[in-house]
């Protein structure tokens, strides 16, 4: 027998506060019975999520034993996420998920928080005493470290970890994992990498490979990180965190389409992680894959029902993407999507009624949906009420303003939309992200289908230009500009081709006149615009030619 497991003189269960969460009274009672016979004394029983979270808000709890499946409403994972997210549980507290399933199916769902251990039913007293006993032993041994982490005193936590490693070989995995994370948090990437390399030198462990790739990403070694993560996924196709990190790496490499594909695969494997669906939705939206985006937003909204991560923005984004899809589509699919958008917005208004701007945000999208379905009168009516409320806003948030401008464009109020965007650009002149969104909207103030069409023509034009086929390039850019006449880069593309044509036909002054007309369209281009320098350069060139 190994001697290290002998019971401490002091009963380790007696001092701790336990919380049992299970919807079956019989199970709660038998669990309490088992805990008592292990020496536990302070035991609270609850049947559902709400009282569980309530109890943890006002009481100190050391060990939570929570059934995963709690019937209708929140499940064990929701409780875990809420408790850890709101910091209602200390780092030193143990959260044990009790399940009838094998653990992996559940681990796959989670993205951020995982329980300290799984207890698989059937559970008997001997098992509980052993398992819980060793977890409590571990908790007590690591308390000097977790206490510092709770107080966010990371340097001290690191030095405690370093002291414990030679003394506590039993908890080596926990110690090395935690040490790597702590170095990462304080930004000491060199030491974090060394921790992971030390582990990997001994053994190819997936958590250490992941940690190493995380460090590589933080050090902007994107290629190496992406390569490492691809290998990791090949070996462990069910390691979801690796997919999340790979998508991040691919994005940083400037490959958003590949990143989207990776997340789509991960979402198939583990359909329950809200934040993963949200990330996918954002990526797909940026990739103009509105079908995928709306599907992912739909999932995000549905998973939010019981989640701490639920947010009105998810509803709004779903409605916005459905509005994009339904715009101008009067067939069955289009009308269905429009109806779904309005339905989602009405749910959002009810669920987030505390938010003062929620009705305004909702009506801005509603008006656009009606307009896209040819119901101008409804669109106008709603827009009138929006205009009133907007005037009373003290300060317009950027997102709300951008969305409002979009609706103004769609309802034929171009001058008003441009004026609004001008004001927004002045107010947010130090926010590159907002400025870029404003530029994009000014460039392409049309529905996403027309946007894709114009982008297609633009690509054709560039290809023809590179092949030396100037006629074809001009006609492709012309077609694109007939859809988005104010698009800065497109106008400049056309000017460049026309100037090239002029080199070949120096007598054809009409080409230069067209160039001048195109450049005049852009005379409101602000200095901070990405195309501004190119615009200035072309103006000088034209002046030189026409002088």
């Amino acid at each position, binding site marked *: *027998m*190994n001697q*290290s*497991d002998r019971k401490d003189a002091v009963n380790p269960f007696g001092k701790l506060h336990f919380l049992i969460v299970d919807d079956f009274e019989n*199970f709660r009672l*038998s669990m309490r*019975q088992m805990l008592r016979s292990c020496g536990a004394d302070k035991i609270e029983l609850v049947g559902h999520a709400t009282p569980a979270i309530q109890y943890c808000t006002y009481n100190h709890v050391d060990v939570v034993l929570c059934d995963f499946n709690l019937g209708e409403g929140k499940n064990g994972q929701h409780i875990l996420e809420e408790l850890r997210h709101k910091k209602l549980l200390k780092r030193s507290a143990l959260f044990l998920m009790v399940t*009838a*399933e*094998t*653990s*992996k199916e559940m681990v796959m769902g989670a993205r951020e928080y995982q329980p300290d251990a799984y207890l*698989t*039913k*059937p*559970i*008997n*007293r*001997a*098992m509980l*005493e*052993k*398992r819980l006993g*060793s977890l409590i032993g571990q908790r007590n041994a690591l308390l000097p470290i977790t206490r510092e982490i709770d107080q966010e005193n990371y340097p001290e936590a690191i030095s405690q970890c370093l002291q414990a490693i030679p003394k506590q*070989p*039993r*908890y*080596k*995995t926990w110690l090395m994992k935690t040490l790597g994370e702590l170095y990462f948090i304080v930004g000491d990437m060199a030491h974090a990498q060394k921790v992971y390399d030390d582990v990997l030198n001994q*053994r*190819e*462990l*997936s*958590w250490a490979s992941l940690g190493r790739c995380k460090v590589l990403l933080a050090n902007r070694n994107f290629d190496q990180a992406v390569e490492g993560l691809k290998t990791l996924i090949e*070996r*462990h*196709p*069910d*390691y979801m965190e690796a997919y999340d990190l790979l998508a991040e790496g691919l994005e940083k490499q400037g490959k958003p389409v590949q990143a989207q594909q990776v997340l789509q695969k991960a979402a198939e494997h583990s359909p329950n992680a809200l934040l993963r669906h949200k990330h996918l939705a954002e990526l797909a939206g940026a990739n103009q894959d509105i079908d995928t985006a709306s599907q992912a937003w739909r999932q995000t909204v549905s998973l939010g029902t019981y989640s701490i991560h639920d947010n009105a923005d998810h509803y709004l984004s779903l409605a916005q993407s459905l509005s994009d899809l339904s715009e101008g589509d009067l067939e069955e699919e289009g009308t269905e999507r429009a109806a779904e958008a309005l339905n989602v917005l009405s749910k959002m208004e009810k669920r987030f009624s505390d938010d003062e701007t929620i009705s305004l945000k909702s009506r801005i999208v509603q008006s656009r949906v009606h307009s896209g379905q040819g119901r101008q009168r409804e669109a106008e009516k709603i827009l009138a009420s929006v205009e009133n409320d907007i005037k009373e806003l003290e300060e317009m948030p950027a997102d709300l303003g951008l969305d409002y401008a979009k609706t103004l464009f769609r309802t034929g109020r171009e001058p008003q939309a441009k004026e609004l965007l001008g004001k927004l650009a002045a107010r947010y002149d130090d926010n590159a992200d907002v400025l870029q969104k404003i530029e994009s909207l000014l460039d392409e103030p049309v529905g996403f289908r027309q946007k894709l069409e114009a982008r297609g023509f633009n690509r054709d034009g560039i290809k023809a230009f590179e092949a030396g086929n100037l006629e074809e390039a001009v006609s492709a850019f012309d077609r694109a500009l007939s859809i988005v006449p104010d698009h800065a880069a497109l106008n400049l593309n056309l000017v460049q081709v026309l100037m090239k044509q002029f080199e070949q036909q120096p007598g054809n002054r009409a080409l230069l006149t067209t160039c001048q007309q195109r450049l005049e369209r852009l005379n409101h281009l602000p200095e901070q615009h990405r195309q501004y320098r190119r615009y200035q350069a072309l103006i000088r060139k034209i002046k030189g030619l026409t002088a």
Partner: protein
Amino acid sequence: MTDPTIDFSMVLASAVHDMKNSLGMLLNSLDELRNEHEHTLAGSNKFNMLQYEAERMHNDLVQLLGIYRLGEDNLSAHIDEHFVPDFLADHLARHTPLLEGLGIEYSIAADDINGFFDEDLLTGVLNNTINNAIRYTKSRIRLTAREQDGYLVIGVEDDGNGYPESMQHTGTLSFKALDFQSGSTSLGLFFASSVARLHSEGNRSGSIKLHNGGALDGGVFEIWLP
């Protein structure tokens, strides 16, 4: 007649999943019953038999699901470092009510070592092997762990009659080796051997060994993990 829309193995897998959970609840109730009626049930052969057979079915179903996922290429080993004596003690605890009920002595002889393995997969193997040992032992079961030739060796020994000549072997089993005619399908051994193979390090991979002897002079099951 065949209906191509029915994916039979999928149907089977979800049915097995359901049965497994049901049996889990049943085993839970058996444990509670045993606690509530300690005096009358502790020595009851019928009750012990009931628990043993339920345990056996539960293990079989867990393995069946594992093998299904293996076939779907959906099972990979999540290897982590574990303190071996704790791991063995945790899992022996699950069987102590039955062992005590049957009057079987049990012990652990494990070196204080860390090992690299997938906890869930090894749990399946260990439960099945202990269950098997309960069936064939006379009076004693012993779990062992040591490091040998760079491998972690976990063993389950009993003082029964040992494995018949035809079953004693070393290495890995193939699916074809399963004999559905003889009644003993060796499903458990096939599963154990598959789990062993999923554990690999460099060009070495795990295997199982069956032989007779050991400290109790009975059957010895060993799983060797690199």
